[in-house]
Structure formats: C-alpha cells, structure tokens
C-alpha cells in the first residue's frame, strides 16, 4: 500500500475558485429563479379558522400564493421517514397547516414572487385567523397530559424507551458521594 497520502499535508484543489468568490452556492444560481417567503404561525397551538390570500395574490410581482387547500397533497401528513421501533404514536406535520398549527413557526402559506422583497411584502398581506389552543411546550406539561397535542395520541406519549447498563442501585449505594443535577436540553433536531 502506498503511503503517498498518509502523514503528509495535502492541499485542496477546490480552494482557488472559493477564495476568489466563484463558488456556486444555491442562492448564487440566478437563471430566472423566483423567490419565496413562508407565512408562519405565531401561535404554538391554535386552530386555523380562516386564511385570506386575496390581497397577497394581487400584489404586483407575486406569481402565486399557496395554502394547503391549493395543493393536491394539502391534507396529507408528511411521511415518517425513519420510524423507530419504540415509536408507537409517530406523528408528522403537513407541508402547509390547514386545520391546526402545533408549533410557533409552522408554515401556513407559501408566497412565490419575483424578489424576496416582494415576497415578504405579500406575506404580510396574508390574513390568517387563529383560535389559540392550550399550549403544551415542556416535557413536564406534556407528561401531565392536561391537554393533548394530538387528539389520537393518549397521554402525549409518542414513544417509551429506557436504557440501562449495570446495577444502578448498587453503584449509587456504594458511591462515596452522590449528586443530583437537573439538565434541560433543547431539541437538537426536529
């Protein structure tokens, strides 16, 4: 086996054009591309009672405004791509919400325009009426299950999983010192 590449510094071949500003990142590709803007729910949990896109559609420079009602797949939940064996009640969202929003930021309408400037102007003209619902945003509140995020997910439990290694009780009993700490982690991916 040759050792030509091992243990020796290797210079990259792609640097020149990246350093000169000749990269081709997605937004660098013009070629007549349009730009979009999403209208998103400000509520963490709410029923959508109406969506009015008429004014947005009228704005010069706007090519289309889509809601779930305009899409053939508008009432289809997105697929669960990698179902975990412990997932008993996997739930996904729809590409555009139509009846219910379940997180602040969930997309409700999709604006396509000649420029991002116009797309944002149009997004502001979309009128969405919401009926706020009780918010369930921490694991503790979810576990208490006073309110359900999905009507068909009992107790708000999507999956149950416990992992154990060794004899925990014995190890704790033998330890010279014991410390209890409470950690809160944000979601890393959704």
């Amino acid at each position: 086996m040759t050792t030509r590449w091992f243990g020796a510094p290797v210079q990259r071949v792609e640097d020149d054009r990246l350093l000169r500003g000749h990269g081709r990142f997605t937004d660098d590709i013009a070629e007549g591309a349009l730009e979009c803007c999403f209208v998103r729910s400000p509520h963490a949990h709410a029923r959508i009672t109406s969506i009015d896109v008429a004014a947005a559609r009228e704005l010069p420079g706007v090519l289309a405004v889509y809601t779930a009602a305009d899409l053939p797949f508008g009432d289809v939940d997105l697929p669960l791509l990698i179902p975990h064996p412990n997932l008993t009640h996997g739930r996904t969202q729809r590409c555009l919400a139509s009846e219910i929003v379940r997180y602040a930021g969930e997309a409700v309408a999709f604006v396509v325009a000649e420029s991002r400037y116009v797309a944002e102007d149009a997004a502001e003209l979309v009128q969405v009426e919401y009926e706020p619902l009780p918010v369930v945003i921490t694991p503790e509140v979810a576990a208490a299950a006073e309110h359900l995020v999905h009507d068909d997910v009992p107790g708000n439990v999507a999956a149950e999983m416990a992992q154990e290694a060794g004899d925990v009780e014995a190890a704790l009993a033998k330890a010279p010192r014991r410390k209890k700490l409470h950690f809160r982690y944000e979601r890393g991916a959704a």
Partner: protein
Amino acid sequence: MKPPPFEYHAPTTVDEVCSLLGSQEDAKVLAGGQSLVPLLNFRLARPRHLVDINRVAGLDRIYQRDGGIAVQALARQAEVEDSQLVARLCPLLSAAVRLVAHRVIRNRGTVCGSLAHADPASELPAVILALGGHVIARSVRGERLIAAEQLFKGVFETALAPDELLVEAWFPELIDPYAILEESRRHGDFALAGVVRAGQHLALFGVAPTPVIADPKDPAAGLQPSGDLEASPEFRLRLVRVLTQRAFAA
C-alpha cells in the same frame, strides 16, 4: 429579510435634515445604520420616511471644546477609536468604543447614533452618563442642550423629539481614574451587565431600561434587572457587584 417600503431622502445640509424631520410624519434618521438597518431588515421598524444624513458635509468632526471632547453626528466609532485627541483627553471613551460590537461595525456606526438609539445594554450611553456629558439636539425650532441625566428615558427611548437631530455629543475630559468593564457571552456581544467608572462616579448598563447612576459602595441597591435566556436577574446583580469592585480596586 428585507426592509419594508419607505420613502428615501438624502439631504445635504443640517437645515434640510431638520426641515424633513419637521415636515414628514414618521421619519427616522439613518446615520451609521448598524442598529437601524437590522431593525428594518427584521421589519421591526417601519418608518414611512428614511432621512439619510450621510451626505451632510461638515458633521463628522471630533474636536476639543469647553474642557471636553465633542463628537459630531457623523463621526464614526472607528474614528473615535483611532483618535489621538480622544486617547489623550478622555481615554475612557477610547476604551469604551473598543467594546462596541466589532471593528467592521464601528467603521460605519456612529457615537451619536448609539446614544440616540439608547439600547439599555450598550456602553456609550453609560459612558456619557458617568462622565456627566451632554448632547446637542437640533430642529426647525432651534438648538438645545440635553444633559446626559435627562437624555435616556427608557428602552430605546430618549428625550429627543421625533423632529430632532442629535448633532453633537460632548464628553468631559477625564484622565483618570476610569474603568469600563462588562461581561458578555462572546467578545463583541451585547453586555449581560457592565459598569463604567469615571473618577468617583459609577454608571451601570444592561441592568435597567436605561443606563443608571449607582453608588460605588452599594451598586446593586434598588436594581431590578430582567432575566432572560442569557442571564438571570441574580446573575446580573452579582455581575454588578463584582465588576464594580474590580473597577474601584485600582
């Protein structure tokens, strides 16, 4: 994120600026833009008129007068940072301006703009307060002097009227002792809390809706700082005590 529509004006004299501010409803001054343009891009600010003062000549001086340093409206923070005059006569101001964001921001941002913007977590309002300086505001109605302790009213709120342009900020000379200390998560971030010592005077920033004068012997007295993701109220109070102690240790 793009600015909402506005009408753009680029006057070339102070009189024109004041005339525009006086006649157009809902007008905002654009100087360095380092605070205003982000607000425009987020659409948190939606002024109907934008009065760009960058074309006004003769408004960028840094000079000595009346035992202090005068910094005009278009003097960039970087120019104040590099000024030998400021370093000699008011090194506190030199030190403070180095803590404002990053050099790239300071190349455009202005000292007067920072004072007019009045972010409670920013350094320069606390500096002018600790030094006991003043600003000069101009409008079609004339010029007036606003002392630092009258200038800051609340979060992003000053005593400036909507039709007034902050033309000059004045900082008294102070050789020593001085100190400016702040705690932030990363260099250049907004301060979680900060203290400014000017002689025996103390001003705090980041712990109240405006910069506040405090007693060096009991700096946290009466403070009710907010808590947020970055720092709890207790942590801010602790920072005030520790930083004050360090500022007055020398």
